[in-house]
């Protein structure tokens, strides 16, 4: 029996997922947000400032680009929604612009954030510089190593980057540390969560700020094709913010298939994966009930993905609901498939995507697309931050080629 997709209710439940499972220490902050976020977001002065910054600072609307050579390669029609062309290089800034304006209206003086790949950290540090607000970013020690360029950017923008050294030392642990910071600084601090995770109202609030992606897709596709509805929208999912934004204005359009691509890491059954819908069970992490990778004893499992932004054992409650209700189609791509797709896009279209985004591109091979199908891929971020991982592949190939020549 199919369950119908539902917008979240007043307590933040999408079907059976969501809610606000927070200790009492966080209750006043979360409650203040819950009662005020929609009102603030609807204020004309807020909308005006938000739209103005998206246009003149972020560079929106981002292009909807018909990728001709990629389309030809897969014998179908593929458009790329170029979120990689946003200021700071990813969609993350749509949300941080919204939240910094909101935090100002809540009278908060200090901003904290968690980051995985560093894109959300950079986007937060950027808007804090823009508004002259103190910024502290928590980042897993392991991610600090593998995303060095973004760490440097955050520091240059004036943010303090604090390593999370507990647990798996990745995004999950950075989020724990940010939440603990918020518990210890409840009055003056706003926590800018970077994804559609966390206690209600964060998943809904972040999805609304990111929904500008699908809002633009509709009119842009109509301009291009005369029809505002594609057959497929494809986006990668860690927590799921770019997917939430790309799906948002198509949720109630049953003809549009929403494809979420998770990180399979070394493979779903390998023990080194981050494909939450495939490996997770209902559970509670970071303040919401969702699907969660965990042991039989309910301890959270350390995930693995080559992409720091997808290296998360949970998924936003909206996506858990899309999965449960059958409204979303969930695929996964391995580390290697993502790497291959990054090179494919670079060579076919002259676009170097982020490793996260490469997972969405990899799904093209798994979707059995027909010639007449129209697909939009949310190109969530650019690959500058991942050049070390890409160089490793290039060096390996060059070494192999050299060996080949010596044999000849």
């Amino acid at each position: 029996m199919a369950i119908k997709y539902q917008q979240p209710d007043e307590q933040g439940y999408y079907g059976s997922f969501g809610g606000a499972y927070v200790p009492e220490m966080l209750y006043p902050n979360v409650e203040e947000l819950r009662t005020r976020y929609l009102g603030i977001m609807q204020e004309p002065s807020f909308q005006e400032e938000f739209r103005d910054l998206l246009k003149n600072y972020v560079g929106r609307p981002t292009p909807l680009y018909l990728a001709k050579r990629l389309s030809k390669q897969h014998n179908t029609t593929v458009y790329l929604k170029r979120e990689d062309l946003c200021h700071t290089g990813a969609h993350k800034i749509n949300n941080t612009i919204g939240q910094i304006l909101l935090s100002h209206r809540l009278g908060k003086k200090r901003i904290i954030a968690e980051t995985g790949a560093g894109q959300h950290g950079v986007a937060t540090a950027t808007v804090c510089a823009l508004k002259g607000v103190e910024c502290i970013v928590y980042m897993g020690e392991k991610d600090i190593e593998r995303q060095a360029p973004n760490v440097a950017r955050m520091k240059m923008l004036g943010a303090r980057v604090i390593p999370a050294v507990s647990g798996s030392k990745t995004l999950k642990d950075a989020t724990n540390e940010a939440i603990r910071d918020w518990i210890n600084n409840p009055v003056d601090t706003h926590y800018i969560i970077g994804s559609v995770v966390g206690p209600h109202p964060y998943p809904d609030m972040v999805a609304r700020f990111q929904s500008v992606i699908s809002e633009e897709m509709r009119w842009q596709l109509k301009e291009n094709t005369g029809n505002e509805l594609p057959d497929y929208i494809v986006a990668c999912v860690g927590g799921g913010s770019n997917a939430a934004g790309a799906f948002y204005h198509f949720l109630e359009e049953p003809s549009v298939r929403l494809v979420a691509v998770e990180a399979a890491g070394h493979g779903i059954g390998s023990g080194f994966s981050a494909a939450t819908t495939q490996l997770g069970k209902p559970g509670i992490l970071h303040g919401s009930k969702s699907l969660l990778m965990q042991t039989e004893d309910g301890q959270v499992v350390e995930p693995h993905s080559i992409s720091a932004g997808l290296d998360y054992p949970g998924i936003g409650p909206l996506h858990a609901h899309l999965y449960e209700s059958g409204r979303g189609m969930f695929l996964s791509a391995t580390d290697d498939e993502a790497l291959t797709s990054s090179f494919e896009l670079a060579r076919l279209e002259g676009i170097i995507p982020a490793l996260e985004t490469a997972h969405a591109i990899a799904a093209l091979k798994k979707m059995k697309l027909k010639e007449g199908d129209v697909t939009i891929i949310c190109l969530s971020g650019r690959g500058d931050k991942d050049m070390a991982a890409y160089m490793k592949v290039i060096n390996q190939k060059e070494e192999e080629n050299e060996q080949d020549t010596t044999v000849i």
Partner: protein
Amino acid sequence: MNRILQLFERKTNNVLNVYCTAGYPRVDSTLFVMKALQDNGADIIELGMPYSDPLADGPVIQQSSMMALDNGMSILKLFAQLKDFRHQIYTPVILMGYMNPVLQYGFEKFCQHAADVAIDGLIIPDLPIHEFETEYSAIIKRYGLSFIFLITPETLEARIRKIDELSSGFIYAVSSSSTTGHTSSDTTGQQAYFKRIQDMKLKNPVLIGFGIRDKETFTGACAYANGAIIGSAYIKSLGNSPNIETSTKEFLSAILK
């Protein structure tokens, strides 16, 4: 009437609740620690069930939880350890833990097994009031367990009244808005908050926790409440000592003398 309620019938001052982590420092040390706490004057034992992501806890309890998990501790193992523990321990015992492991165990099964081994109450800091009322309160009541809610300096009066209605056993007043083990520097603000709670004349007893670490802080808290809760300071003392009994004796006698 469970042991917590009985305790507050006969003792309303200087009630000492001490936290320990199950499976810490060793997987099989749980009962030794509890026995040592009972023998040296603890009135209530708060037994922590270790979790990989303890959001409300500071570094000391995080570390003890991590060690307990590395030791192989789990809820299943804990209930096995607690089978027949009432032969030697008569002190009220509260299980403290986070929602996710309890959900995985099965909420009702968890309450049933807790009641079977004669546990008296639960603290689950990330179980919110809304879900408590709509889904879980009836189950908890069915098994005769107390449920202890937290309040903080930021909790508004109307909400404290509501929490007082929903609580049984006692109310856990967090001394400052912080994670466990944090020491507040604002003693004047803290005293005003304690006084405010005291003047509300709640129907449940109140114990003050977070930052209570020695005789001075314990006595200070007891001036405003029915007692206090010690966690991180005790865990730290256990970690520094090879002998559970002597370190517990030393730690508690310094507070109670």
